[in-house]
């Protein structure tokens, strides 16, 4: 019984966040657009030579995905904090870490998953070939949930702090570094013909680790923010 009402609360959170995203039909498209724009800025800055672009392609794509994730972090808790919904959430008779998990899942569905879906197209624009494209998608599929998990900790820590947009970047980016290295590394090595499996399994390990640790850390951070 307690299990079912737990599930009830978590799915309630996910549903509400998705509903909110649907309310602005544009919201889900947003991080995708951002990704596309950032990715297109690079050739503008760097110049149009295909060889150079092919070399930096995986790195640029991964950095852009990471930044898109970072930019959307503001959405995870800030609004809830300001309008008092977070207060109510902490008072829900369910373990807070679980509810946090629900919020992160919703965040990923809205801003991480569309990025994964779009990435092959962008990879094509940078001249990646078939197999590398597969590795790119796979690496993002494993990596973006990790980014959301880690990001949530940062977002919770900076609640109610001024200039938090940049502060959260500062807190979170160092933690993102391993994910970036493994993710871009997987694609690069598959382009070099070495195959990306090693890096991909490291990414998987990151994901599992963050699944176990992040919700608790986030829950603790939220309680502190509300005291």
């Amino acid at each position, binding site marked *: 019984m307690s299990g079912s009402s737990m599930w009830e609360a978590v799915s309630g959170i996910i549903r509400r966040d998705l509903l909110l995203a649907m309310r602005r039909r*544009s919201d889900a498209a947003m991080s995708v657009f951002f990704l596309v724009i950032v990715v297109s800025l690079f050739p503008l800055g760097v110049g149009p030579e295909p060889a150079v672009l092919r070399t930096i392609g995986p790195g640029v794509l991964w950095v852009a995905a990471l930044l898109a994730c970072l930019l959307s972090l503001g959405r995870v808790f800030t609004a809830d904090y300001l309008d008092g919904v977070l207060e109510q959430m902490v008072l829900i008779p369910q373990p807070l870490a679980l509810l946090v998990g629900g919020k992160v899942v919703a965040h990923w569905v809205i801003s991480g998953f569309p990025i994964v879906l779009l990435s092959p197209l962008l990879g094509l624009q940078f001249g990646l070939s078939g197999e590398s494209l597969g590795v790119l998608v796979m690496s993002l599929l494993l990596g973006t949930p990790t980014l959301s998990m880690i990001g949530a900790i940062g977002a919770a820590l900076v609640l109610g702090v001024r200039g938090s947009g940049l502060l959260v970047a500062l807190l979170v980016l160092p933690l993102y570094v391993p994910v970036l290295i493994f993710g871009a590394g997987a694609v690069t090595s598959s382009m070099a013909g070495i195959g990306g499996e090693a890096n991909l399994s490291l990414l998987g390990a990151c994901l599992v680790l963050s699944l176990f640790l992040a919700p608790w850390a986030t829950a603790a951070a939220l309680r502190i923010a509300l005291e």
Partner: protein
Amino acid sequence: MSTGINWLKYSSPQAFYPLAGHLIPWFACVAVALMGVGLYMGFFVAPTDFQQGEAYRIIFVHVPAAWMSMFLYVVMAVWAGIGMGLNARLSFMMAQAIAPTGAMFTFLALLTGAMWGKPTWGAWWVWDARLTSELILLFQYAGVMLLRTSIDDVRRADRASAVFALVGVVNVPIIYFSVQWWNTLHQGASVSMATGSKMASTMLTAMLLMTVAFWLYSIAVILARVRCVMIERESSPVWNDEKPAVIQETVEAR
């Protein structure tokens, strides 16, 4: 003053609605006819290109679409500007109606360009100035439309997206001239007033026919969309000349 039509009369949605209704079929018919002629000339009269073979025939959709994409943006910005200046609802509605069609042509220019790029350059996409700037134009259309849907209050949405459209128009000339600032894979203008045309005249004719057809198509579609917008936005339907179907049916239903 006494002769001719009083054009100001049509600046109110009530008067414009029926006028648009009368114009749509004409534009649509002429557009379809010209498109037919243009396609015939494009596929059966225009000769094979000695360099690119048959692939060049993509030009008959690519170039008109690319031109329309830029042209429509400017037109949208002009309507937006009129709306801001005169606080005229109709102008905002026109701007709102133009954006989706403009975005569609931008998308088509990108798509057909990619289709052309694969056989001629060997790549679907290169980051050349013309291509990138067309992509940027797509983002500007997306920005205008997303800004509008993100704001609930219609009045505010109108004015906010108008401000953005106006600011963005600064970018259009930059997009257009970027080819010259950046030596580039994509070809520059081959149709220009000064030098005349370098193309075979039948090709050129077909292309121009298609352009005019796309243009008329856009007008028809935009007028139809502006009528939809009017129905959606006016809470009390007070059209004078022609009673829209809605009201007639309603009256019958009672």
